[in-house]
């Protein structure tokens, strides 16, 4: 399984269906990942559209050194950071209704995560700080290794390992405060 690399290659060669496949494969996961940056699902959707727009306009070269998924998440992280930087300079205000945002987020969680346990876990993760949310999403929900996650968050493997450890500790505290009960073995 090449995680979409062949679809991207087909798109580069001129087959538009390649990018459609990538959107179907990665859109939801990217939205939830970028939501850890923005805390706003609507903005996260816009940013994901910008990520795919960047792929369509600039057609960046994928050299195959990392997996396609890792490469795409790196691009998404950079686009999200640029967006937030611009937003802080412009002082943008979100006009979307808060209840609508929460509704969209819940709907997406249900669609993408599907399993109840995963959804509960994600609810707890959303209460952590942004950096912990991002790393836990990549490790637990996108099944990335520490080294792949290190590439995405632009840290060393050692620093990423430390971050994962701290994020897990914080998650444990959060789960306990959310009433999560450990199963007795």
């Amino acid at each position, binding site marked *: 399984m090449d995680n979409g690399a062949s679809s991207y290659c087909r798109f580069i060669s001129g087959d538009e269906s390649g990018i459609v496949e990538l959107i179907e494969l990665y859109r939801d996961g990217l939205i939830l990942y970028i939501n850890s940056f923005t805390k706003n699902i609507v903005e996260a*959707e816009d940013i994901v*559209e910008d990520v795919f*727009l960047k792929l369509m*306009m600039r057609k960046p070269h994928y050299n195959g050194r990392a997996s396609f998924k890792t490469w795409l998440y790196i691009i998404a992280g950079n686009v999200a950071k640029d967006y937030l930087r611009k937003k802080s300079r412009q002082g943008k205000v979100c006009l979307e209704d808060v209840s609508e945002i929460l509704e*969209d987020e819940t709907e997406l969680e249900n*669609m993408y995560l599907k399993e109840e346990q995963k959804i509960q876990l994600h609810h707890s993760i959303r209460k952590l700080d942004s950096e912990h949310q991002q790393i836990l999403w990549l490790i637990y929900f996108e099944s990335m290794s520490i080294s792949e996650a290190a590439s995405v968050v632009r840290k060393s493997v050692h620093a990423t390992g430390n971050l994962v450890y701290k994020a897990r500790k914080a998650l444990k505290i959060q789960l306990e405060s959310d009433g999560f009960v450990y199963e007795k073995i």
Partner: protein
Amino acid sequence: MRSYGETYERIIAKKSIAESKIKARNKRIKKYATAVSCLCICFVVVFLISKAGTYTSAGGSNTANDLRTEFPADRSQQTVVTQDNTTKVYEADGNTDSSVEGQILPEGNGESEAYRIRMVNAAMKALPDEDYDKIKIDESYIIEKYIKEGAQEIELCLIHLEGNTFYYEVEIDVEGKKIYDFIKKAK
């Protein structure tokens, strides 16, 4: 929550907006580049025109003495245009000033013209000796030089100033205009 189709359509719409912005920007850049190029070309042309007609006398690139003389038909007066664009009129009847040194003993015609001495002195003062010594100035050098500069006729006359100092009096014809020059001969 948008569907995959809606997301794709929005991306396509954003793409066409971005492409039209890029097209408009490229058009603007092209316009400004053309305007700047035209300005540069005009500047270069004006610069070249202002430099055209500059004439340097002998000594190659080291000439500071850019004295040119135009003799009227009767040769009773001589107007010298010096390098700083002031004009001086020398009388042919031998009026001299304190800068006159030596005597000209031209070969062949027996005339002695004081104004030539004045111009020769000015030519001597304009260039240090060591610069002349670097260049072998002789008849062939002078002829070659003036032919390159468009002279149709060249007349050379060797003038003995004093001691070992000789000057070439050069009379050339450039497009029907008589031009005179004095060039110190190398030792």
